């Protein structure tokens, strides 16, 4: 620890940090633009100037940029020095010469870092009366608006987009007064993380396009701490609501999970909540028409289901509480998994590994610490995008080591990058298709899935001879050797796999991790196993291993079970059409609870409307076994209720959580995520509305001039009101970050124990799964026995960030980026079948139509299938398929939105 003096006060400081970081960590106000907590310093904006003194006798001092000066022991600085202050106000005055006076019509207004800093720096009168430079704006796709005139050239956008997130289509252009941040030409921003520009930009150059179509000021949004339901990472979000509709999602800081950034699925995928097709009333299907049900009718109907012969099918996209309520209602033995049987099988393998003491499931922050990574068979960018962003940081650990050797501080971002150039920590990808992480990969192997798994087993065997050998051709021996050496040499190696394509790859990944565990004298190895949905892990912890979906469908079909309750799930995505049809036809009564109509609700006798993630309080468990609490943001005006409320008599989420803890072995610690009594101060709740929330009394004046009573929230520690006391002691109740003088998201530093640290009130979630099984052993490799015939191709499922997730696919901004179902083929296989880019083809066995996408990076003999959103069901296909050119070529299907790096180009040019 170093001691530094700031304006005469002594502070303890970390000498590895710079002065700006330390000032902010101490809660002091020092303006800045180009510095960002997760991107380090470049010293571009000159806004954080302070006076530094040589010693106590030095009265003159020199101006230094706080962000470029180490917090060395004995440093004496002054923020309040008149010289420093006037320098800062002159800097901002010059940055602001061409900034338009458009705050009233700018979407950033009210949460603008530039507004805050301008005020803080004391620049309150514009002396510049010349003509301002103006720019043309670009169309950047459905997510982000562009308004270049507001730019103050801090370079944060390109530093995030290119340096941090690896995007290649946004750059700084031109020079001096004309510097322009944009694409080479108008078009969709290709990075999956483009939405973060909205929060990274200190002013309104990049704003949320979906939000601007339904805009509201930050202070007029009702917000609550929420968890993204887009994938299994469980990023923390703050969704905002106004006038009954959900308007936008912004990042909510969690030191362990998402830090400062979200992916675009998470940011723009919330809009399904506002979908006009939402199910909002209980409906009974009578002769193909819907009939509204009254309360007592619903009750009578549910009562019918409480008899014997009822089974329940859970959902990986529903909360723990709703899954538990269903399980409690039908009994554990009658509660079945809500995902495909293939996924169920791999989930069992995964759960077994989750309790193994040899492994650790790393959080996103821990993934960033890995110094050698092996991805086995998983397309991380599309399955768990936020983790792909973390992996892009992990490869920079090499650069950080080099910087340490050269004694360059880590926060010297540009210097560290210059030093390392293209020198990256090893990241090897062995998979069946080119992925969006390939540009930072040290080695890539494209092989069929069975070879991928075999290579994994082989790597394990080479690391530790105790691991079993696999049948693996010698073709990749060199790379295997290299990967083995890299993993062995690493201080913190990381193995990543997932269950998008069966369990054999997971077994192979586990063997590698176990071999490393043995090799490294029993030091715990990071093994990150990805699952697709927000609560895949939670639901699987509640489901008996002997209760896969297939067994439920069989029971219904053969009449052993008569009634079925389907919880927030479209079974047609989980099992083949024939099987689901047969089961639902055979069942005497089908009850479905969901938010949006699906093929399953269409076949239900009764459909009960369920609330969406922002309309109820719930807990979810992410890929690492981390339980997190998501608060209700707003009320659902119609009759939708949380599914558990339809199914059981519990009054309160807390009651169900308590029962989960007691009745589900894996969820014993779930209650730790609840806020308890702490947030209450003098009996006051935490308000969801800001202290500036406007127009409350007039909101419904068009209907009735009498001010309605504020909605009551009897369940939670939060209220639908402006009154109350902001959360003081529990960060899980901290929704919209705001501090005096800091209206923008940069105010978060006021809530962190230090910059980039944990939130002062703690609470990054609770790791539920206890590791106590030390008896784990290697898996025996299972080789793929099926040989394809002449016309057959090996099927691999491909996830897409936009479209593969069922709910976000009902969100308008996401729909603008989705593609139809397609088959990815190697140029060779396409030619063989006389198929060209964009052709429509049919695939066996169902003859479903798909678009052809020819990619250079696909191995001949493999067909990559993306199912689109409900175009076709993955459950209908497995193993080997045949692809044929369709007799009817429609133009209504397309893959125009697809962004891949290995698109077979000759075809599109012709």
């Amino acid at each position, binding site marked *: 620890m170093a001691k530094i003096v700031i304006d005469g006060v002594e502070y303890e400081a970390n000498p590895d940090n710079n002065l700006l970081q330390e000032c902010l960590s101490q809660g002091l106000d020092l303006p800045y633009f180009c510095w960002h907590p997760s991107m380090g310093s470049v010293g571009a904006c000159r806004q954080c100037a302070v006076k530094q003194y040589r010693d106590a006798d030095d009265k003159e001092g020199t101006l230094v940029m706080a962000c470029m000066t180490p917090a060395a022991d004995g440093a004496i600085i002054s923020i309040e020095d008149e010289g420093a202050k006037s320098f800062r106000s002159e800097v901002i005055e010059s940055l602001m010469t061409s900034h338009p006076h458009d705050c009233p019509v700018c979407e950033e207004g009210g949460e603008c870092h530039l507004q805050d800093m301008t005020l803080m720096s004391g620049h309150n009168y514009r002396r510049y009366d010349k003509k301002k430079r103006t720019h043309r704006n670009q169309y950047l796709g459905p997510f982000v608006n562009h308004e270049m005139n507001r730019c103050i050239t801090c370079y944060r956008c390109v530093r995030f987009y290119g340096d941090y997130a690896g995007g*290649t*289509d*946004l*750059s*700084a*252009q*031109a*020079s001096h007064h004309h510097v*322009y941040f944009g*694409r*080479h*030409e108008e*078009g*969709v921003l*290709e990075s999956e993380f483009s939405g973060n520009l909205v929060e990274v930009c200190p002013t309104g150059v990049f704003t949320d396009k979906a939000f601007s179509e339904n805009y509201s000021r930050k202070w007029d949004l009702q917000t609550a701490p929420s968890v993204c339901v887009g994938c299994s990472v469980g990023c923390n979000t703050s969704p905002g609501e106004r006038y009954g509709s959900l308007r936008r999602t912004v990042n909510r800081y969690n030191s362990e999970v998402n830090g400062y950034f979200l992916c675009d699925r998470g940011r723009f995928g919330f809009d399904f909540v506002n979908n006009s097709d939402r199910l909002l009333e209980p409906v009974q299907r009578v002769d193909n028409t819907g009939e509204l049900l009254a309360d007592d009718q619903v009750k009578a109907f549910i009562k019918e289901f409480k008899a014997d012969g009822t089974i329940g099918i859970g959902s990986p996209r529903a909360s723990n509480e709703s899954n538990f309520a269903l399980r409690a209602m039908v009994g554990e033995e009658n509660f079945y998994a809500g995902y495909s049987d293939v996924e169920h099988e791999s989930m069992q393998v995964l759960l077994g590994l989750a309790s193994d003491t040899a492994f650790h499931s790393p959080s996103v922050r821990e993934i960033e610490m890995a110094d050698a990574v092996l991805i086995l068979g998983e397309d991380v960018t599309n399955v768990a995008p936020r983790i792909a962003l973390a992996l892009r940081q992990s490869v920079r650990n090499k650069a950080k080591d080099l910087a340490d050797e050269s004694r360059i501080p880590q926060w010297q971002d540009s210097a560290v990058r210059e030093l390392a*150039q*293209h020198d990256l920590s090893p990241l090897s990808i062995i998979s069946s298709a080119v992925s969006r992480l*390939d*540009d930072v990969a040290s080695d890539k192997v494209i092989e069929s899935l069975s070879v991928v798994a075999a290579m994994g087993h082989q790597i394990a065997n080479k690391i530790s001879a105790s691991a079993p050998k696999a049948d693996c051709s010698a073709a990749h021996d060199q790379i295997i050797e290299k990967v083995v050496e890299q993993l062995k040499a690493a201080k913190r190696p990381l193995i990543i796999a997932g269950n998008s394509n069966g369990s054999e790859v997971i077994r192979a990944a586990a063997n590698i991790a176990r071999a490393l565990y043995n090799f490294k004298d029993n030091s715990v190895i990071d093994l990150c196993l990805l699952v697709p949905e927000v609560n895949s892990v939670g639901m699987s912890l509640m489901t008996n291993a002997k209760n896969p979906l297939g067994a439920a469908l069989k029971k219904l079909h053969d009449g052993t079970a008569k009634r079925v309750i389907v919880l927030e799930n479209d079974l047609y995505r989980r099992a083949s059409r024939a099987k689901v049809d047969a089961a639902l036809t055979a069942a005497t009564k089908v009850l479905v609870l969901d938010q949006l109509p699906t093929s399953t609700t269409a076949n239900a006798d009764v459909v009960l409307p369920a609330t969406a993630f922002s309309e109820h309080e719930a807990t979810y468990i992410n890929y690492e076994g981390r339980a997190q609490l998501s608060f209700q943001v707003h009320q659902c005006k119609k009759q939708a209720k949380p599914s558990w409320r339809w199914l059981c008599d519990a009054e309160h989420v807390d009651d169900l959580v308590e029962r989960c803890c007691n009745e589900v072995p894996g969820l014993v610690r779930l209650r730790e995520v609840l806020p308890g009594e702490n947030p209450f101060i003098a009996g006051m709740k935490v308000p969801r509305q800001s202290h500036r929330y406007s127009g409350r009394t007039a909101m419904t004046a068009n209907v009735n001039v009498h001010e309605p009573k504020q909605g009551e929230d009897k369940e939670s520690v939060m209220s639908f009101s402006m009154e109350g006391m902001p959360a003081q002691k529990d960060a899980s109740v901290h929704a919209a970050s705001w501090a005096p003088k800091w209206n923008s998201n940069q105010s978060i530093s006021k809530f962190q124990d230090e910059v980039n640290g944990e939130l002062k009130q703690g609470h990054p979630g609770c790791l539920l799964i206890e590791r106590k099984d030390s008896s784990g052993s290697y898996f025996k490799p299972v080789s793929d026995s099926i040989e394809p015939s002449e016309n057959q191709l090996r099927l691999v499922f491909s996830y897409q960030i936009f479209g593969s997730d069922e709910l976000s696919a009902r969100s308008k901004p996401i729909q603008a980026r989705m593609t139809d179902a397609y088959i990815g083929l190697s140029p060779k296989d396409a030619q063989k079948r006389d198929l060209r*880019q*964009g052709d429509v083809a049919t695939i066996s066995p169902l003859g479903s139509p798909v678009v052809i*996408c020819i990619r250079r990076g696909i191995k001949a003999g493999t067909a990559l299938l993306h199912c689109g959103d409900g175009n076709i069901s993955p459950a209908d296909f497995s193993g080997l398929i045949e692809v044929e050119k369709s007799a009817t070529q429609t133009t209504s299907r397309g*893959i*125009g*939105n*697809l*962004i*891949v*790096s290995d*698109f077979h*180009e000759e075809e*599109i*040019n012709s």
Partner: protein
Amino acid sequence: MSQQVIASTAVKARRLSAEEIVEIEHEMTLYPDKKAVGLEALKIVQKHQGWVSDESLLGIAKYLDIPAADLEGVATFFNLVYRQQVGKNVILFCDSVSCWIMGCEGIKSHIKDKLAIDYGETTEDGDFTLIPVPCLGDCDKAPVMMVGPDMHRNLTPEKIDSIIMDCKTIQD
């Protein structure tokens, strides 16, 4: 680093000519990093084509396998990489301090009258483009300007006339 291709926006990149490729390949042997060759490649293409069109820029990006956005950043940073079509002769006219003292304003208005173009404009026949530059480093012979590779010093209206005449004759 490999470029991403969006299926829907397949803008056609120009195939670089054999001469351009030979020169770019030579430059590639001089730098450890392909990104560093970007500027040289732009200069080479400009030498052959007169300017750098969108198609040329994409062609270079594709050939070097670097992001077009990055190359655009380089191309637009330098004033003398022309991203718009210029005339056959580019007049780089110095309007900096020394030339100003020596009366470059009068010379400029003479050019303006003679060719009917202002800064940043090209004559209708496509022969001349007039661009201001801050200094050509020949202050003791001010006012000065460059036309193509040639430096013209101690300018007078008469000299301007003959320079323009010469350029036209050479072309014809």
